[in-house]
């Protein structure tokens, strides 16, 4: 084994230019593959961080305006969603429709403490809003069922809001904030750097709005859904149900608006796998051009060494020794320089990750061990292929002819 390594080392050293050229081709291919994979990993990570956590089994419904006349109504009618809609939807008994909740949005409000005041707007929500929106708590708790039942005046602040109203978000829990002539107890702070809104219980929000039945959004949690078709079917049921309540054409797509988080999630996942596959395909093709380069150069180098191979065969080298030597030589070159490419590529992605940092749509680019492993396997296979064809060709030459070649 050491002997073979030595033989390979000698021939590599003896063909420095060739070794360097092949090496650069492979290193470049691998470098591109790694950078591409690292970048796509960044996009996937960002997706997971932003959207991945968001609940993936809800359909959101927003009021809209009809575009068709129906049952004597003119077109252009505003469809106001009602609190009662959720009970009707739930009582449909459709096995895809789980719990139905609603949201009430407040107008802008001014919250104040002794320290500061801030403009914001509130959302009256159910406890399930936390998982649906994918936010996480940094302190305290979210709205709970008791808050809803008792119409408590409790409030969950965003991190930004808590920071400006209270010096320390941790300390804001249990404190009160004033809103007009009402005061709300801060029960929790959620993690958001960009959102300024606050959450209060759904029932409290309805009370603030003057106890109307109007709601701004319905949230249907889906059960028993697996495929895009399931999601669309659930959407259809909801649309039909709402159409019969509010008396509009069920085919009128603008009467109410849907945001199907379930289907979106499925599509995003598909999108991410497509991205991943695309990157591998591009990377592999880049690498392939490197490999073809290696193979070409191996062809030339094996041809140049026909005479030497002739000598080796005259003194008793068996075909498989020659074959092994050439293939191992090619594998050594590809893996050696391939690793060079891996290191450079990893370094570049790390640098990019450092400078771009956590921007929208980009998070922690980089390569993990499994990718490095996969790439190594690709390298070894590629090197073997690149060496095998020239080697097989070289072995077709008879020893006499090889010896005659000068």
């Amino acid at each position, binding site marked *: 084994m*050491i*002997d073979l390594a030595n*033989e390979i080392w*000698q*021939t590599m*050293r*003896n063909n420095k230019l060739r070794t360097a050229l092949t090496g650069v081709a492979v290193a470049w291919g691998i470098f591109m593959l790694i950078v591409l994979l690292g970048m796509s990993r960044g996009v996937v990570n960002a997706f997971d961080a932003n959207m991945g956590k968001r609940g993936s089994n809800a359909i959101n419904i927003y009021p809209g305006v009809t575009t068709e006349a129906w049952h004597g109504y003119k077109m252009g009618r505003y469809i106001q969603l009602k609190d009662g809609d959720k009970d009707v939807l739930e009582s449909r008994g459709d096995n895809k429709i789980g719990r139905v909740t609603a949201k009430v949005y407040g107008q802008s409000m001014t919250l104040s403490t002794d320290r500061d005041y801030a403009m914001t707007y509130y959302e009256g929500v159910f406890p399930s809003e936390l998982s649906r929106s994918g936010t996480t708590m940094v302190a305290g708790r979210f709205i709970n069922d008791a808050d809803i039942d008792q119409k408590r005046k409790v409030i969950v602040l965003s991190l930004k809001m808590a920071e400006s109203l209270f010096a320390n978000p941790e300390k804001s829990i249990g404190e009160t904030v004033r809103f007009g002539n009402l005061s709300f107890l801060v029960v929790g702070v959620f993690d958001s750097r960009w959102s300024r809104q606050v959450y209060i219980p759904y029932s409290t929000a309805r009370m603030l709005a003057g106890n109307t039945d109007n709601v701004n959004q319905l949230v249907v949690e889906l059960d028993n859904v697996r495929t895009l078709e399931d999601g669309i079917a659930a959407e259809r049921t909801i649309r039909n149900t709402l159409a019969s309540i509010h008396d509009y054409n069920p085919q009128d797509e603008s009467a109410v608006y849907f945001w199907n988080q379930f289907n979106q999630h499925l599509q995003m996942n598909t999108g991410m796998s497509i991205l991943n596959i695309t990157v591998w395909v591009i990377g592999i093709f880049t690498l392939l051009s490197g490999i073809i380069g290696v193979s070409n150069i191996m062809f030339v180098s094996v041809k140049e060494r026909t*005479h*030497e191979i*002739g*000598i*080796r*065969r*005259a*003194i*008793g*080298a*068996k*075909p*498989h*020794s020659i074959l092994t030597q050439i293939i191992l030589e090619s594998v050594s070159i590809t893996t050696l320089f391939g690793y060079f490419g891996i290191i450079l590529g990893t370094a570049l992605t790390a640098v990019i990750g450092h400078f771009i940092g956590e921007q929208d749509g980009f998070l922690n680019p980089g390569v993990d061990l499994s990718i490095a492993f996969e790439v190594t396997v690709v390298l070894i296979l590629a090197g073997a292929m690149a060496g095998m064809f020239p080697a097989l060709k070289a*072995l077709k030459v*008879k*020893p*006499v002819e090889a*010896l005659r070649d*000068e």
Partner: protein
Amino acid sequence: MITLKDINKTYPGIVPLHVLRDINLHIDKGELVSIMGASGSGKSTLLNILGILDNYDSGEYWLDGVLIRNLSENRAAELRNRMIGFVFQSFNLISYKDAVENVALPLFYQGVGRKKRRMLAMEQLERVGLAERAHHLPGELSGGQKQRVALARALITNPSIILADEPTGALDSKTSKEVMQLFRDLNTDRNMTIIIVTHDPGVGEQTSRIIRISDGQITV
């Protein structure tokens, strides 16, 4: 040791060339023979067939009781490695390996360990009087020295036959004599069968039998 029966060889081509015609030849163990003949008469072709580097079209070639015909490349490589030592006019040393590495190479293909290979290679270099040149590359050696390295390489597997194609063709008369002396010593001391292709009548004289070949036929 070697028996050829009605060996024929034709090089295919637009005008096929019948280089060897009904060659019949017997060489005993321990013989030192030379093959002489005009340029293009088929000497190298014959020697390559004897060395299992090339194949023949018809006839029979028996080497030490083994019929050499349609051998697999593996078997041929093994026979070349164990039974035959080659010496060529153009030396055929590997340019980036030093003398001792060149001499040791046949043992590499026998799977002999590194240390033992080196030791045996040094022994052979000493035998041909080149021990102090062991770590020189072929490019740093004179023609005579190169041919002695090649001879050491041919000898290292302790073959039963040495086949030499114009081994002195590239050497001056003095170094020629030295190389021929080595062949003669091998023949007498170790009873090796040696076949030398040559143009030089002086070389032919030093062998015990001269086989003359003309137009692909043995004349004597």
